[in-house]
């Protein structure tokens, strides 16, 4: 066995380790200080300093442990594996075979950038239920990160020389240029509309409260109205300003997070880079993508903008958002052009079949069930103004009708597209071979009306994500079940479709 060079992390990772622990401890820290007070309570004289000494000792201990952690950390490549050795008190070793590695994610934090370093996160296939399943190299140079990638490609190529070599040569050279770059203008629209709905409504409330004097019932409840109008105006103004501040902050955060958002395709992987202060690079193998969603919230639907979100399989539990924002904001008419290039197997021109008229009642009728007692009791106990709760009924009816209008589906041999609305309009593309299970739901009332709902489940993250096509014709639901049923089509065809 030949000697293998073992690599260490950049010294800055000691600082990063330290800061990370500090960040985790800041809340208990604050609480302890808050409880004890700065004076140290009943202590007198020098004893009150004990608490500070404890803090200082603790901080030094953390710093030392950060340094030791960095000193102890080694990684090297051997026998087609990425091997890591680490541990503060107990020495641990982890060997990760390269072919198990699903993706390498790079992040450049504020501390990384001056030194040209990156944080590398190694993601393995689904496997572990713990955070431990993946490895993280806190800070290494960009060249070292590149080397890991090279080693990985090398190891994978050894596995299957014939297939990979032909694959690798052509796309890399040609497709280096970004497929999608978010323009500054779109970025601004994204930032300003992301929390926009709340501000809009509170602005509306201020506006409306100005006009309440036009309403004639003033003469009847003059004093009450005076009070309420004044109160309402004041509250509306306060809410408006609070939301305005929140909005400005959220605009700034979005701007920083999504600055220079680009998508590239390399070696059957989607690479997303973004961020102003902290540069993030996310790699998603195309083969892991289970579904594609186009989400339009009502405000953006008006301006013709949409968001594209991917459902991806596997991924670590530590990573909360298994739904990846592929495109945070884009003009609706430009989506297909980009998606077709990334996913040539999908057909993005969907011709939705809508839900039958008679199933409209199912979209709001169930809500009436809980609304009747609620509205009745509210009207009774808060008599004159409680009657406004009756407005719930027409509103919920309109909302249901709106959902009914949006709901629909479309399929061809390979894929199913579902469109529905909760509040935002969502269209989701699923390949048949990615659908894990399909369930037809029929209630007693649906049966009488001859409709059914159909639930499809795809894998998303470590668990599943279910999409329901609501209240479609029974016949259509059954034909969809047949479409999904493997024996109804040529079994050989499916077998061919599988390896990808």
């Amino acid at each position: 066995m030949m000697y293998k060079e073992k690599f260490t992390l950049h010294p800055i990772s000691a600082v990063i380790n330290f800061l990370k622990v500090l960040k985790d401890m800041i809340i208990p820290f604050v609480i302890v200080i808050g409880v004890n007070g700065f004076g140290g309570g009943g202590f007198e004289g020098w004893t009150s300093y004990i608490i500070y000494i404890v803090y200082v000792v603790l901080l030094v201990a953390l710093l030392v442990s950060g340094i030791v952690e960095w000193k102890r950390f080694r990684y090297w490549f051997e026998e087609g594996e990425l091997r890591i050795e680490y541990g503060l008190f107990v020495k641990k070793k982890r060997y990760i075979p390269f072919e198990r590695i699903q993706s390498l994610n790079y992040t450049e934090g504020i501390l990384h950038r001056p030194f040209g370093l990156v944080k590398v996160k190694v993601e393995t296939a689904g496997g572990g239920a713990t955070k431990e399943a993946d490895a993280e190299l806190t800070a290494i140079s960009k060249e070292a990160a590149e080397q890991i990638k090279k080693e990985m490609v090398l190891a994978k190529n050894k596995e299957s020389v014939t297939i990979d070599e032909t694959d690798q040569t052509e796309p890399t050279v040609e497709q280096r240029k970004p497929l999608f770059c978010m323009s500054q203008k779109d970025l601004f629209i994204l930032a300003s509309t992301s929390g926009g709905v709340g501000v809009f409504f509170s602005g509306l409330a201020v506006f409306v409260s100005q006009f309440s004097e036009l309403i004639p019932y003033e003469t009847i409840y003059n004093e009450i109205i005076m009070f309420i109008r004044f109160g309402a105006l004041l509250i509306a103004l306060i809410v408006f300003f609070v939301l305005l501040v929140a909005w400005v902050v959220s605009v700034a955060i979005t701007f920083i997070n999504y600055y220079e958002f680009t998508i590239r395709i390399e070696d059957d992987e989607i690479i997303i880079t973004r961020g102003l202060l902290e540069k993030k690079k996310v790699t998603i193998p195309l083969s892991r993508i289970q579904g594609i969603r186009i989400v339009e919230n009502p405000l953006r639907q008006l301006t013709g903008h949409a968001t594209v979100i991917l459902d991806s399989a596997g991924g670590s539990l530590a990573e909360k958002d298994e739904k990846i924002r592929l495109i945070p904001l884009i003009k609706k008419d430009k989506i297909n052009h980009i998606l077709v290039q990334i996913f040539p197997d999908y057909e993005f021109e969907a011709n939705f079949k809508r839900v039958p008229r008679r199933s409209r009642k199912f979209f709001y009728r169930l809500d009436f069930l809980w609304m009747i007692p609620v509205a009745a009791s509210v009207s009774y106990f808060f008599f004159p103004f409680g009657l406004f709760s009756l407005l719930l009924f027409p509103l919920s009816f309109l909302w249901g009708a709106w959902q009914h209008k949006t709901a629909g589906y479309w399929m061809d041999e390979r894929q199913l597209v579902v469109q529905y609305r909760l509040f935002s309009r969502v269209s989701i593309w699923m390949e048949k071979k990615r659908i894990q299970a399909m369930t037809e739901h029929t209630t007693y009332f649906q049966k009488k009306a001859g409709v059914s709902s159909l639930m499809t489940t795809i894998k998303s993250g470590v668990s599943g994500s279910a999409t329901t096509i609501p209240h479609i014709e029974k016949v259509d639901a059954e034909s969809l079940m047949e479409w999904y049923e493997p024996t109804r089509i040529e079994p050989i065809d499916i077998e061919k479709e599988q390896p990808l």
Partner: protein
Amino acid sequence: MRQEPINRLSEKGLRVWRIYGIFQSLIVFLVGIGAGVINYFTGQYIWLYIADGVLVLLIGYLLIYLFPKIRWTRWRYEVREQEIELQHGLFIVKRTLVPMVRVQHVDTEQGPILRKYDLSSITISTAATSHTIPALVTWEADELRGRISVLARVAEDDV
């Protein structure tokens, strides 16, 4: 109209569900007694006693007799070469289709009550979902588990 799946659960499964129903009714019964006691100390309304009793009896009837019966008659399953089809549900009829290629693993499980009646439940898991057939005779469940795992292995897949 699609064919219903052909296989039913074991007859004994119905009995087991009735036992579960008895346990659930016992809880309801205790709550009912509690309500009666409260009534005794507060108002002693006769009609409340009656309503309380009727309600407990009604829930007991539903939990022990009617619901298990509906569930049992509704429950169907079929394991074919390429897919598994299930039908179940009390108020909502659910028909589920799971292609064999999607099956990741199959488990059988047996609680104390099921064991007494020599029954097992069998759980089929895909990458994203899991589906349970609740009451099969143990040898049948074991055989089915073996069959599904063989059929599932024939078709290997990427996710």
